[in-house]
């Protein structure tokens, strides 16, 4: 009961946070210099045209009126029109969000299937060659900026490796639109187009590696540290003394309590990747929400900025709630106490 109350309280506060976020971003976006209507119409547009567009977009209204108008539209599911694409922001986000989410999901998957086993192996091989290698690799991953790695991979692959695309979501030869879910791999599967699935996966290879590298390092280090910590506990010592096989001790008794910091970090990384993916999207020309948001900011496209921030905010809140649920599942004490350990 306490746990569900805790989750409900978190949900309530999240709504307040999101509302506050809309106000802050609304104000900041309008402080950025530049006339968005003029920028959208180009330098040769007449003053009448600029004023007409400003009026159409409600930009000539007082700020509180503009904000209320935006919030009114939001409640109706209308985020207004983008000045850059000249179409509803909702339509833009419907296309761009899945592209970013697909990249992020693959990245998190790579982080989990690489970082966690590496961390466990490193802990089990403490001070051995694998542990030293894993720690060095983790450090390199953490200190190497994602965009630098992205460019490096792109250049190395572009010059040396055939068959791995360096740009985009899908080869131009494949006439396919991900119009079911927006996820290229999933829509390819649903359409029975294995060529699309394979091609989309190959296109995501380099961006995923570039985006995941730093986080893999972090996950490896956290997991290693957590496993070492738990393995020093008395009950683990006792299990070994009782002669339980090593794999049973590791996977049945040690992994679950070690997972809490890892899951927490995975969740935080997952949530932040949505926004941090923009540099990767720009380098690999992926039509995702992150790069869409950056362009919106540079073009003073207020509606698109608000829409992007809102989606990111909701996503962040949702992921954190899921993390709390998972933690509650992993550690019953959290469920019983109604708060994270």
């Amino acid at each position, binding site marked *: 009961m306490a746990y569900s109350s805790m989750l409900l309280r978190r949900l309530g506060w999240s709504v307040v946070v999101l509302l506050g976020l809309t106000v802050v971003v609304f104000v900041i976006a309008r402080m950025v210099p530049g006339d968005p209507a003029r920028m959208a119409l180009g*330098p040769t547009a007449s003053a009448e045209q600029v004023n007409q567009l400003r009026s159409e977009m409600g930009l000539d209204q007082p700020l509180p009126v503009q904000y209320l108008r935006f919030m009114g539209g939001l409640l109706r599911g209308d985020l207004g029109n983008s000045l850059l*694409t000249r179409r509803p922001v909702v339509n833009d986000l419907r*296309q761009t969000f899945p592209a970013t989410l697909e990249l992020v999901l693959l990245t998190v998957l790579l982080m989990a299937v690489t970082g966690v086993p590496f961390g466990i192996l490193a802990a089990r091989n403490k001070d051995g060659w694998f542990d030293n290698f894993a720690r060095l690799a983790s450090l390199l991953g953490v200190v190497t900026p994602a965009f630098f790695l992205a460019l490096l991979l*792109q250049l190395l*692959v572009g*010059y040396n490796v055939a068959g*791995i695309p360096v*740009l985009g979501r899908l080869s*131009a030869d494949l006439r396919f639109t991900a119009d079911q879910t927006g996820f290229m791999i999933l829509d390819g599967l649903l359409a029975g187009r294995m060529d699309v699935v394979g091609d989309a996966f190959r296109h995501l290879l380099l961006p995923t590696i570039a985006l995941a590298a730093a986080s893999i390092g972090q996950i490896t280090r956290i997991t290693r540290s957590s496993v070492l910590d738990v393995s020093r506990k008395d009950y683990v010592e006792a299990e070994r003394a009782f002669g339980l096989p090593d794999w049973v001790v590791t996977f049945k008794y040690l992994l679950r309590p070690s997972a809490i910091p890892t899951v927490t970090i995975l969740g935080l990384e997952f949530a932040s990747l949505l926004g941090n993916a923009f540099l990767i999207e720009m380098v690999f020309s992926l*039509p995702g929400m992150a790069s869409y948001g950056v362009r919106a900011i540079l073009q003073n496209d207020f509606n698109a900025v608000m829409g992007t921030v809102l989606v990111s905010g909701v996503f962040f809140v949702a992921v954190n709630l899921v993390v709390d649920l998972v933690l509650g599942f992993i550690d019953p004490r959290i469920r019983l106490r109604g708060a994270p350990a």
Partner: protein
Amino acid sequence: MRPRNVYVRSLALALAVLTLFSAAAAQNVVTLNAVQIFGTIDPAIASDYTDYMAAVNLYDGLVSVDENGATVPLLAESWEISDDATVFTFNLKEGATFQDGSEVLASDVVYSVERLLAIGQGPSYLFQGVLEAGSVVALDDHTVQFTLSQVFSPFLSTVPLIFVVNEDAVRANEVNGDWGRAYVGDNSVGSGPYSLASWERGSRIVFQRYEQWHGGWHEGAIDEVRVIIANDEATVRALAASGELTMTSQFQSPETYDALTRMDRFRLVSVPTGTGFYYKLNTQVAPTDDVHVRRAIAYATDYETIREFIFPGEPLAGPLPSVFADQYLDELELPVYDLELAAAEMAQSRYAGQTNIPITHAYVADTAFEEDIALMFQATMETLGFTVTLQPEPWNRLTELATSVDTTPNVTQVFFGPTYASPDSMFYTQYHSDAAGTWASMEWLQDPEIDALIDAARSTGDVEEQNRIYKEIQRQLVDDQVGVFLLVQTVQHAMDVCLDGFSYVPVQSFDYDFSRYTWTCRE
């Protein structure tokens, strides 16, 4: 390029297994990168170079422009102009079809103009005060007549920017009287040489050849055009190395051009344009409100060093590049770098003998060559007694500063080129008082004489008189040193050695009409 070692080959093989099917590729495919996204493919809303690139390939106008700036037939095979230059009658070519197979009729032209004027964006600003609703009528299925509200001599040069849309297709998809904006923003409803094959907004757009295009296809014509959004230099190089890229954008760094031309597959195509690179001098605020100070700045500018080492270009003698051959004032002398003459001008100014004269110099932030030019300006001007404040600003900040005379810097580095094939597009937007308040008109000239000359050139149908007026405008602007004329921009592309056909056209993005290109290699 082949993988170098066993591991990499195995990896490539494994990846190849993931590809179970490969569609047959088009024969002649051009892949180029653009440094900004396509905001829209609706020709009535186009406002920048990528929007117009889409428009010129997906749509046709009544006429087009060739590389000499001359008006050439397109959907119209001929036209007549009334003696008073207010009535233009175009005779449409028979048998021209839209990409859905329906014939292009005069009613489509009428609808396209009405739509352009009603939406009031994109190129519609060119027709304000010139065309009114109802002033374009279809005399019959293949004859359309434009009646202008006033004489506007550059009118024919603006007609290429009226792109004809399929009235039936648009009307069928109108929503709440939106003139089909939602539909046309996502779909191609034109008669142009290419149709929209696919569009991943923010990533890539693909145009596919329309086989029944009325203009016909030559041997080696381009079957497919893929425009990839990639503005990072490393990405462009990687694309080129992987064999995907055929042509770069014109905005790459010299190092990238160098790297690509060292690959045997590419050559550097370098062509002078009609775009000038200027110091825009604010003529209304001190100290650049003093003509002697402006002349001193002109004399203190090292033009050759800029062109040779910082940014490639051709010499520029005045506000109008020589691509407008008939209107260009040949007697203009090229500006010279002479610090003695600069000092002599300062001695005649009201700042003679003074030091620490404050002056601001703005440029687009994070643009390396503009920063180099600004630093050179600072070093030179400080020898003349100025204290230079450099103002690197993001582009949107510069456009905002330009809206007021008091916030406009003394000196701003700006590129400006023609949006239609007439000197009017250079003079009106930059120097007419009615066009003040934009980044293109940071001189704040406000000169009634210049206004009168520009208006006079617009209102006469006599070509010789127009040319005389344009030359007089140049003379006065140079005498008054309203700006420093740094260079004519040379556009550069790294192009595949098999690709031919790029030549500068003095209308935005008309040089990216891929129906004019040819793939010269035969497999």
